[in-house]
């Protein structure tokens, strides 16, 4: 008799605690949804950093409607050698004409539009005009100021 009573109490307790525990467990689950608690923080990636670097360090040489772009040397550069190469890009297979106040040089861009043309600078300030004429007779021009000086600066 006593044995049955103890068993009944034990089973009742287990059942009671079990139901209560299950009830609290379910309530906790509802009030703390997993997905909504996750906070998304943008993490810096290498690509982001490279992009911001490119934007900030891009030389002030702004892009114009001109299809010709000079990559080297920089505008207003002071050079100690009179013989230099003008490098840049334009439309593919364009005729490139570089004119200093006293001389004219010409060449062609390659299939990728890239060109490199050797020129000779005059002493001092050289106001240079660079023209590109593509296969459809479209002409675009840009200017470059270069200084050739052997003086110690």
């Amino acid at each position, binding site marked *: 008799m006593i044995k049955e009573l103890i068993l009944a109490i034990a089973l009742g307790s287990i059942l009671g605690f*079990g139901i209560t525990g299950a009830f609290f*467990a379910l309530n906790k689950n509802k009030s703390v949804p*997993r997905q909504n608690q996750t906070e998304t923080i943008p*993490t810096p990636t290498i690509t982001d950093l490279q992009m911001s670097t490119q934007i900030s360090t891009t030389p002030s040489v702004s892009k114009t409607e001109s299809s010709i772009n000079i990559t080297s040397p920089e505008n*207003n550069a002071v050079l100690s050698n009179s013989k230099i190469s003008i490098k840049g890009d334009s439309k593919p297979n364009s*005729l490139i004409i570089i004119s200093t106040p006293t001389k004219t040089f010409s060449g062609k861009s390659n299939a990728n539009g890239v060109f490199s043309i050797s020129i000779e600078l005059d002493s001092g300030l050289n106001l240079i005009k660079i023209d590109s004429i593509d296969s459809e007779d479209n002409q675009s021009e840009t200017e470059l100021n270069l200084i050739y000086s052997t*003086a110690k600066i």
Partner: protein
Amino acid sequence: MYLFLFILSVFFSSPVFAQEVTAVPTIAPNREVLQMVQQKVKDLLQNTDSTSVEPRSIIGTITQIDSSQIVVSYKNESKSITITEDTVFIDIKRNKTKVENIKSGQDILAMGYLNQYGNFEAKRVVVTDLKTIQNKNEIVLGKIVDISQSSPVFVLIPIKNKEIQYQIKTDAKTEILDKDNNKLALDKLKAGQKIVVIIQPDAKIAKTFYVSKIITMDSVTAQASNTSTNN
């Protein structure tokens, strides 16, 4: 006993939340890392931009000058030049001079570097005359419409503007090239031919231009094939 264990396992089984709890502390370090990286990039850019290793130059007409600074204007843009005790001044006759002798209205060419504050610091300021060193060359793509038989002159109409005509004078120094940089004789030029000319206004004859270089846009083989087709 088995029933007892079964009841226990049913009622006391619950979801494991360990993953949620460990994810939370990672939020704060991410922000710190982001800020730290941003600061590093900013510092790096400031250091890169504020000083220049290669010498640079500024040209323009002086609009303002004092013992520490020159302001110049060129193509409607004003630029400031910092001058120091070490700055060398050269007058128009290529002689050394002093800052006191440099006046507003003069054209100058300043050579120097960007200092740590991002200001252009001149090492050498040369007085010059921008009018005399202008690039007067004009590069025109057009078609020859007429060639004079009595004088070394031809008429060119630009491809993109048929309202204009250029009367162009050649001389013995005029260089004539085809598109592949092969030299051509003057008598190779024909009416109707598409060419590029590098011209300058002729100082002696009004409305006439002197051509220093002619580049024919039709290659030699194309011209040859055109000629044979016409014949």
